[in-house]
């Protein structure tokens, strides 16, 4: 990065001139506020940032950021971002998507962007419902969910974003919650610092069509027993009194009590976000409410070769080896022959 002093930008410098049009009370506002707050801290000029989205409520996000932005078509944001990043690896690219956009119509692109380890940050706003089309169940909706399109309850087993991301061997996987803004800001900073695909699931409340879907994880009276805030190198402890922990019993996690002294911190599972094997991260991603506290924070953060760098390296290597191609060489290659006058 240039050593030249950058003008000190503030959150409001990242606001575009467009009115925000989400429903009052929508969790998206909190996310937008945190993104605008964190962006100036990154020291990256606005013109080097691109926000890319697909279709859905969350996908209006780029219109509200004073950066470059591309509001594309349903599900395709990771593919659009791939083209942008490969064309210009110097750009900082954020993909904003939702549970329907990213995991239903665009599931394919999401998986492939992740497994290629394209250096982009993917924010998946998970509200477990289709909002923009007014309330159908989404691929993350719980089994039996009653919605406009499932009056007798849905019969599809839901998909779990973190498990999908880890299954595709994402190099950075995290979860945060719209109502825990400090934590969200920290996760955004971590994602921005990560080189490679950073996948973040954000529990986001749709107060119109699925109000309270994640209150178990966000509200004071419940959240201590239902969430497990991860810290690298630390034992997995949760509960309002920090008196519960996660232990590995064979291949399975189990909840144990630290209250009676029979179990010590050293007996617990320790978080290792840097493990080259994604097994622990996957195990964490399968800890789900109500059986387990759900992990919040960074599940995985490892270095992997990056896609756009690999592509650029091959171009550079080819030029170094063969010299920059000329039109003369291009046209005159292969078997040629002369026809004389």
């Amino acid at each position, binding site marked *: 990065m240039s050593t030249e002093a950058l003008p000190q930008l503030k959150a409001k410098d990242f606001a575009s001139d467009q009115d925000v049009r989400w429903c009052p009370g929508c969790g998206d506002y909190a996310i937008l506020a945190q993104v605008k707050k964190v962006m100036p801290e990154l020291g990256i000029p606005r013109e080097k940032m*691109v926000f890319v989205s697909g279709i859905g409520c969350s996908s209006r996000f780029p219109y509200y950021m004073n950066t470059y932005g591309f509001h594309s078509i349903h599900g395709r944001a990771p593919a659009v971002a791939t083209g942008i990043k490969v064309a210009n690896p110097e750009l900082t690219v954020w993909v904003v998507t939702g549970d329907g956009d990213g995991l239903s119509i665009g599931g394919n692109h999401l998986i492939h962007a992740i497994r290629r380890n394209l250096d982009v940050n993917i924010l998946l706003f998970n509200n477990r419902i289709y909002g923009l089309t007014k309330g159908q169940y989404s691929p993350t909706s719980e089994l039996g969910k009653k919605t406009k399109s499932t009056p007798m309850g849905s019969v599809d087993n839901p998909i779990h974003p973190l498990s999908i991301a880890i299954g595709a061997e994402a190099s950075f996987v995290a979860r945060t919650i719209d109502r825990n803004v400090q934590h969200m800001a920290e996760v955004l900073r971590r994602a921005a610092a990560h080189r490679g695909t950073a996948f973040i699931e954000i529990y986001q409340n749709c107060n119109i069509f699925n109000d309270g879907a994640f209150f178990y994880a966000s509200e004071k009276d419940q959240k201590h027993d239902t969430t497990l805030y991860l810290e690298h190198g630390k034992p997995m402890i949760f509960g309002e009194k920090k008196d519960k922990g996660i232990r590995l019993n064979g291949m399975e996690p189990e909840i144990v009590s630290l209250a009676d002294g029979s179990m010590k911190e050293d007996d617990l599972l320790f978080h290792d976000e840097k493990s080259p094997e994604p097994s622990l991260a996957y195990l964490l991603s399968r800890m789900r409410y109500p059986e387990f506290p759900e992990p919040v924070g960074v599940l995985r953060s490892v270095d992997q070769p990056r896609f756009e760098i690999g592509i650029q390296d091959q171009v550079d290597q080819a*030029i170094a*080896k063969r010299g920059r191609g000329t039109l003369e060489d*291009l046209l005159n290659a292969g078997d040629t022959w002369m026809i004389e006058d």
Partner: protein
Amino acid sequence: MDKQEATTTTMATQTADKPIEELSDVTVRFAGDSGDGMQLTGGQFTRTSAIFGNDISTFPDFPAEIRAPAGSLAGVSGFQVHFSNCDVHTPGDMVDTLVVFNPAALKVNIGDVREGGIIIANDESFGKTDLRKAGYDQNPLEDGSITKQKVHRVPVSRLTREALKDSKLGTKQVERCKNFFALGLVSWLYGRPLEPTLQWIDQKFGKNPDVAEANRLVLKAGHAYGETCELFHSSYRVSKATLPPGKYRRISGNEAVSLGIIAASHQSGKDLFYGSYPITPASDILHHLSGYKHYGVKTFQAEDEIAAVTASLGASFAGDFAVTGTSGPGLALKAEAIGLGVMTELPLVIINVQRGGPSTGLPTKTEQADLLQAMYGRNGECPVAVLAASSPADCFYAAIEAGRIAMTHMTPVILLTDGYIANGEEPWAIPNPADLAKINVVHTTETNSNGNGEGDGFLPYKRDENLVRPWAIPGTPELQHRIGGLEKQDVTGNVNYEPANHEHMINTRARKIELIANDIPAQEVMGPEQGDLLVLGWGGTAGAIRSAVERVQQQGRSVAHAHIKYLNPFPRNLGQLLANYKKVLIPELNSGQLRLLIRAEYLVDAISLNKVQGKPFLISEIETKINQVLANE
């Protein structure tokens, strides 16, 4: 002649003094199992003919299955080459010499061999089982059923084994050399030099000296066999063509299109991004381009057709010259994203190498049935520029032109080629790079508001006199802006749903494409500028139409040929041109798609000639139709 007699023809006692007949042009087809190496054999024969100085045109014809059951009719692979001492435009209507490696190949191809033509058959592959697989009850080489052609039964496999009796190669490897025997034999028959193939063998098999030596020996054995055996009483010569002087190379359409988009990238000073998902018959473009990384070419083999086109749009937004390639089914999948390209007004070239449809259709066969899909196959009023290449070499120029229009008019451009010209080859007079025009691309770096209430700062949809919006790329300070698929207000680009604005934008996007007509050449005509009949074509039918029209012109008839490269918008003079002829005939490899457009646009009651068999037109088919139309005057 029984089998024994044919196979015991002595070689050593013959002299080489056989008569030589001079011919103006010849069509040879090699046919066998898809594993027999027919494409390689045909390709080498073509290469030799081209280097020798003939004009050439080729038609590879292969099954969709990589290895259909051996010996079956479905597994027959063929390669046809037409070489001549004058200008040729097609791979030839009828075959002069057919080389077949099994009964299935004979059955599939014999109908295309002219009366008096030559059939060379690998006699040893006409056993009972081979015959049964091809559905023959009796051996057609023996039962007298072939009466119109001269059959030469050659024990290719045995002679190959004999030639390699001292070789270290195993039985299977020896068997695989037999196509070189046929190549040697046909090379002798038409006086082709062996040197180019010998050199090629050295290059190709240099790391495997035993295989290289075996192929050399078998090639020479085939040649010697022709020279000395009694089967062939004469050989033939096709002298050099009188092509315009200059440096030439052979080129296929897929190769030419690849070179063309690299040239467009070079001439515009933009890096090339090519996003594609493998699909027959377009995959070769991806293969070619992935070998040109030292030209700054970035290739992206996407997870699907939609990712290929949307990644290309992303690359275009970020400032690369973006191209995506596909065939018909892929174009259907890309439709929504092309609409996004129309809405965001970004440059993008979409190459559609057409194949037989609908659905999966005939993946390896040619057709021209995607014209209406290219024109209209999207939701909403969604015009794009549409171009079509007319020959393998023309793919080069058409690709540059597609890139020029895309980048200077800020629009998606669909370039139509087809399986026939994509895989077919012809000699190409290599252009001088200095003769290729520059493509003037400007990336805006300044805000463009005039402050008169049209909005502040940078206005991404403020247009120039051609209604073209500025291409400002991420990384440019102060020009941050957002684009997307929602309808936008003109000038500012802000999301806007107002009724009048929407209609204004629909009309503006249409007008922007229409204005491209000011930036393309007038439609040319081969033949009289007015007269009885204009034969109007587009795409890969150019060679067949031109040859047919030339034949009828030589009979003194008033017929002209116009071949449209610019299908949307049409050239400005096309309407007037059509009015100069009493009748208009439109031959197409579809059910009449250009005719529909011409009738709608110009109210001309054009006549159709349609063929939808997965095969190109024969010259004679068009000639017959022209004569029929003229007779009905």
